[in-house]
């Protein structure tokens, strides 16, 4: 029972750890690490589903007849490359935020935003 579902359950645990980092940590770079953990857990889930008991890697050789399913591999190959592209974009936005605010801490950024908002209110009145 446990061995039957172990891969799925660990994938879910990893996904929740990534999710937890994203929503509980205030540091934006730590959030990006959380997102990569979340992504990787989805990869593990897909690749686990593609495994066939007693099968081998999907590269055709004469002596072998049983292969693991190649389709999830193709999907995940694409997802990894797209994932690194989104990570790069996210980090670029974080670098931009850092130049503007001097911090990557979400709470401090919010505090600074509110300060600025109140200042502009005073200017108007």
């Amino acid at each position, binding site marked *: 029972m446990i*061995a039957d*579902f*172990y891969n*799925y*359950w*660990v994938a*879910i*645990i*990893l*996904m929740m*750890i990534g*999710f*937890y*980092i994203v*929503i*509980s940590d*205030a540091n934006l*770079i*730590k959030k990006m*690490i959380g997102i*990569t*953990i979340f992504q*990787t857990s989805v*990869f*593990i889930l897909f*690749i*686990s*589903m*593609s495994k*066939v*008991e007693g099968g*081998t*890697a*999907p*590269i*055709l050789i004469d002596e072998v007849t049983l292969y*693991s*399913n*190649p*389709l999830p591999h*193709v999907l*995940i*190959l*694409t997802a*990894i*490359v*797209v994932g*690194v*592209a989104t*990570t*790069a*974009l996210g*980090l*670029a936005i*974080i*670098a*931009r935020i850092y130049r503007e605010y001097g911090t*990557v*801490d979400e*709470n401090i950024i919010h505090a600074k935003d509110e300060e600025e908002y109140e200042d502009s209110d005073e200017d108007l009145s």
Partner: protein
Amino acid sequence: MDIQTIVDISLLTLLAVTALILLRLNNLLAAVLLSGIYSLLTAGLFVSLDAVDVAFTEAAVGAGLTTVLLLGAVAITGREQSVTRHSRILPIAVTTVTAAALIYGTLDMPKFGDPMAPIHTHVAPRYIEMSGEEIGIPNIVTSVLASYRGYDTLGEVTVVFTAAIGVMLLLGGVIKRKSKPKKHE
């Protein structure tokens, strides 16, 4: 229990432990390096699950490129993580409920490695049987990626290109602004 199951279970356990340590780390540099180790462990797991193409992509792109990008970001922003966090009760509650729902969802999934799972009985057998003849290369993943699903790969390249333009615009604008003196205030 055969050797493959043991390797599989120990790698997955190591991954869970690494992620838990990552959760508690406050030093950003250590967290980035640990996430590189995490990616490398994932690549090892993919080899044991027969996904060799995915494994070397993960090792090169996940463990290599992502770690370099994160290190660059840490170099720009400084390595001390400020210790402020949001309150913990709500995130713990949300993740626990979600995890419970997802684990309940796995219970009627096909067993791990089951050759009769629906995923293995449709579409994939055709690629396994015919791709050697039709495309003429032994690696089925490459056949599907570059030939049968070539347009998907074109779309992927478009996404990467768009992301690259976005990164260049975001960071290039900063360099230009920095050389100008600040006007307001």
